[in-house]
């Protein structure tokens, strides 16, 4: 189903050697075929694709190159290329229907669940193409957690919600400890420690969403993708989730889709602005990345007028 236009880039021996090398800054494997590093900084190819260049000096966790996502034969996201940095909060903003959600779901292969979705181009995660044929989507999702727009706790107890991930992944260790640690990291422990065995459906919406974040943290992911995590919540709950994101970014990279520009400006280090492009010939609409840069720059001094129009509230 998935069409992957990716050349085999490194042998498996090379891969294990890199793993053994441990925590090098950018593994050699991220060197792409045309000889450039796809880390942030200088990327003429990406700029040509309508994408600005990021500038913070951290290694990339994702390098996205010429990514197209289609549903059936309908293009949803067109030619996206940029790098997402480690241990930062990267916000994806833009009007409805511009492909933000489709894009974020391609970062942990959640789009696999939609039978008609096809992806081409490449998404490299720590240098490894997520859509290479030998990659196991289950292992991908194990490392890249996701929080959805609407809180989606399982119809089980709070405890079992947290323990589900560690259990299915066969994590060893004391489950009570794992659950407590995840709930503490999710800033929920004090509120729920006395009712761990009660059904998660009895929690408030904000608590449910923090439970979902804690649930994602329980499997110790490296990245958390958040698809409008606060859009269904009140301002107080939203504030708590934003605080939580600041705490989390010390250890995980966060990518967040948001409609709320204040939120993007408040929480994120980097911002990518998506826009809807209408194909003149066919009339089809798809999303593209117009600008990607430091959040401050995007909001105060955008280089594209469409970004400026959006962030100043003239459109969208």
């Amino acid at each position, binding site marked *: 189903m998935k069409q992957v236009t990716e050349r085999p880039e490194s042998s498996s021996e090379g891969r294990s050697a890199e793993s053994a090398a441990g925590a090098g800054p950018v593994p050699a494997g991220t060197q792409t075929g045309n000889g450039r590093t796809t880390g942030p900084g200088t990327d003429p190819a990406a700029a040509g694709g309508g994408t600005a260049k990021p500038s913070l000096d951290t290694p990339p966790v994702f390098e996205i190159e010429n990514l197209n996502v289609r549903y059936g034969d309908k293009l949803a996201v067109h030619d996206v290329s940029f790098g997402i940095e480690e241990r930062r909060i990267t916000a994806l903003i833009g009007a409805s229907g511009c492909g933000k959600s489709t894009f974020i779901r391609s970062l942990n292969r959640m789009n696999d669940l939609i039978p008609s979705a096809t992806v081409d181009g490449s998404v490299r995660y720590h240098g490894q193409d997520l859509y290479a044929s030998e990659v196991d989507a289950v*292992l991908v999702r194990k490392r890249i957690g996701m929080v959805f727009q609407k809180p989606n706790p399982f119809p089980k107890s709070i405890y079992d919600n947290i323990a589900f991930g560690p259990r299915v992944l066969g994590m060893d260790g004391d489950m009570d400890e794992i659950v407590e640690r995840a709930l503490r990291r999710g800033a929920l422990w004090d509120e729920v420690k006395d009712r761990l065995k009660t059904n998660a459906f009895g929690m408030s919406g904000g608590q449910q969403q923090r439970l979902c974040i804690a649930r994602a943290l329980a499997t110790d992911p*490296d990245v958390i993708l958040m698809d409008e995590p606060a859009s269904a919540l009140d301002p107080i709950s939203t504030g708590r989730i934003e605080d939580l994101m600041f705490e989390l970014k010390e250890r995980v990279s966060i990518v967040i889709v948001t409609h709320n520009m204040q939120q993007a400006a408040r929480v994120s280090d980097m911002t990518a602005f998506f826009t809807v492009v209408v194909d003149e010939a066919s009339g089809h609409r798809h999303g593209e990345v117009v600008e990607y840069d430091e959040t401050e720059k995007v909001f105060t001094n955008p280089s594209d007028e469409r970004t400026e129009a959006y962030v100043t509230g003239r459109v969208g």
Partner: protein
Amino acid sequence: MEAASDPPGGGPRPNLTRVRTPRSVGESAIKVLLFVAALISVATTVGIVVSLAAETIEFFSQVGIFEYLLGTKWTPLAGGDQKSFGVLPLISGTLYLTALGLIVAVPLGLGSAVYLAEYASPRARRVIKPVLELLAGIPTIVLGYFALTFITPVLLQGILGIEVQIFNALSAGLALGVLILPVVATLADDSLRAVPASLREGAFGLGASKPQVVLRVVFPAALSGIVAGLVLAASRAIGETVVVLVAGGASANLGIDPRESFQNMAAFIAQTARGDIAAQSVEFLTIFAVGTTLFVMTLILNAISIRFVRRFQQVYE
């Protein structure tokens, strides 16, 4: 787990390569197993077709196909020269009994459905729906008993004073009507309720009265779904065995007098299968020939019904 313990500044390259673990092999095995289970239903159809076709071909090697399809006398179980294999009386009997059932079930079923969908309060629905479900769940042997011990002697001969035979089409037809009434009502109710409220509101906004809205706007809008339900109900009646076996009698009748005894195809099959007949005899083979005829008829009806349902879905989805 490792990712969390790594120091900041770039983790090791994660290994995402698919490996064959017992778990991944299990995943594939489960998928195959589920697929095999799904194939059982296909195998059932193949089994039905094969079991019918093999013996039907054998039947037609002994009885001419035109004699079967065009003959007007059906006495396959009779002895010697009296044997005749014209299936027309069975087919007409089947259709006749079905028509009687529909005459009862269509107006009553549709009336019930319109009341349920357009007039009944939520509380009334909560009472009426289970009654219809209960009626739909009555085993057909019970309806057969009801036809034979109540409809014929008490209702027809007693209250209405009609001189019917003990086994007669009228009684079996009424019982068939009761049998398919819930089918008609339930499916029509579903179709009526699927009509968007905006359509009703639009008509009311033009000053139409409730009966006008129901009859001229909602009912036509739901028509293809309703027809699909009627076709399905008809195919239930066509294939019904026991009601006809018990109340309709055992004569293949080409006539139209509802006071006489009529038999349908399914009841003939049951009656013959119960009898003491030798396997592979021509009497035995008639079971399969008639079975094929019945199967083809219901298949055609079902195809028609599915077509109507498709059209219905296109309108509102």
